C-alpha cells in the first residue's frame, strides 16, 4: 500500500475538513455508521468517512464511464459520425467490468421477486 510516501498526513486532511460539507449529508453518514456501532462527536471524522466512500463510488463511476466511452466508440454508428454532445447512460453492462477491476463480482440475480 503506498501510504507513507505522501507528504500530506491524514490529520492534515481532517484539519481541512473543518468547514467542508460532503455530498452525503452528515446526518445520513452518522446514522449509517451508528448502526455499525460507530459513535463520535467529531463531525470531521464523519466527513472523512463520507469523503472516502464518496470517492470510492466516484472512482467506480469514472471507470464505468471510461468503459462506456470505449464501448460507444467501438460501436458502429449508422450515420458514421459521432454526435458531439452524447448522453451517457450507466448500465450494468458498463458497471460490471468496472466493478470487476475493483475485485467486486456482480452477477445478475437469477430472478426478480
Amino acid at each position, binding site marked *: 500500500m503506498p501510504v507513507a510516501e505522501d507528504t500530506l498526513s491524514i490529520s492534515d486532511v481532517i484539519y481541512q475538513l473543518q468547514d467542508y460539507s460532503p455530498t452525503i449529508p452528515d446526518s445520513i453518514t452518522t446514522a449509517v455508521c451508528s448502526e*455499525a456501532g*460507530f459513535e463520535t462527536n467529531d463531525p470531521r471524522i464523519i466527513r472523512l468517512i463520507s469523503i472516502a466512500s464518496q470517492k*470510492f463510488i466516484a472512482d467506480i463511476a469514472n471507470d464505468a464511464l471510461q468503459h462506456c466511452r470505449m464501448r460507444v466508440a467501438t460501436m458502429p454508428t449508422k450515420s458514421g459520425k459521432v454526435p458531439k454532445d452524447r448522453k*451517457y447512460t*450507466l448500465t450494468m453492462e458498463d458497471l460490471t467490468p468496472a466493478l470487476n477491476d475493483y475485485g467486486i463480482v456482480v452477477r445478475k440475480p437469477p430472478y426478480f421477486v
Partner: protein
Amino acid sequence: MDKSMERKFLKTTVAGILLEIGFQVVEPAALETLVEMLFSVLSQMGNSSRRYAEVAGRLEPLGADVMMGLIDMGLFKSASSLLAYAKRSNRGVLPSPEPSVQPRQTCNLQAGTRLPHPPYMPSHMPSFPDPHAYIRTPTHKQPVTEYEAIREKSAIQKHELEKSLIKFLIKTGPTESLFLNQENDCFPLIANKPQQPAYISALIPMDQVFDDDPDDSEMPPPSKKIKLKKDDLNKEEFDENEEQENENEEEEEIVNCEETEIKQEEPIDNPFLRPVKYPAGH
C-alpha cells in the same frame, strides 16, 4: 430516521456523483447496485474504524482509526488524493435532511411540588416524582364537618327548594293577586284553597293512620277517580275519615280539579296540566 429514508438520501447522493462524473442516465439496477455498495461501505467503515479504536483502547475513533479502516478495505490510496477529491471544483452539496416534525411532548399535569434531592443523593439521579405518587394525595377541598356550616347549608338548600316549589306552583297553579287589579300580576300568590269546614284537619287524627286497605291506596281504578273528581267533590271531603289513607292522593285530585276549572277560564299551555290519556279500550 428509518432505513428507507437513509436509502433515499444515498440514492440522491449516488445520482449526484454520477451526474458529476458525466452520466446523464442510469439504469435502475446499476443505481441500486451503487446505493447498496455505498451503504455497505459506510457501515463497514464505521465497523472497522470502531474496531481499530477499540483495539487501541479508545472509545471514540480518531482519524487514524478511520484511515486504518480504509486501508483495511483497500480504499485508501493517499491522503492528498482524498483531499484533491474533496476539493474538486464541480462538487455539489445535498441539502441536509430536514428533521421531521417531532410530536410535541405533552407536559404532564404537575400535582404538588417535587421534593429536592436529599444531600446524600448525587445530583445526576433522576428527580423525585410528584409527591402524590408516593406520599399521599391531597384532596383540594376538605369535606365540611362543622355543625354550623352543615346546618347553614341545609337551611339554604331547604329555602331554595321551597322557593323553587313556590315558583313552580305559581306558574302552574291558580294564583291570587295582592292587589285588586288582575292585569299586571307582579306579586302573585298561590291561591289558597279553603277547606270546608276549616277546622276539619285539626280534628282528623293524622298520626294514627293504618294501612288497612292497601289495594285502594296502591292502585285506585282510574274511572273511580275521575268520577270522584267531577261529582262527589264535597262528599269526598267529608268522607275523609273513611279514606284517610287516600288523603294525599285525593288532595292532589282536588288541586287538579281546581286547576282544570281555572284552565277553562284562561288556558295555559302546559303539558303537565293536560287531562290524563288512557290507552284505547277505556
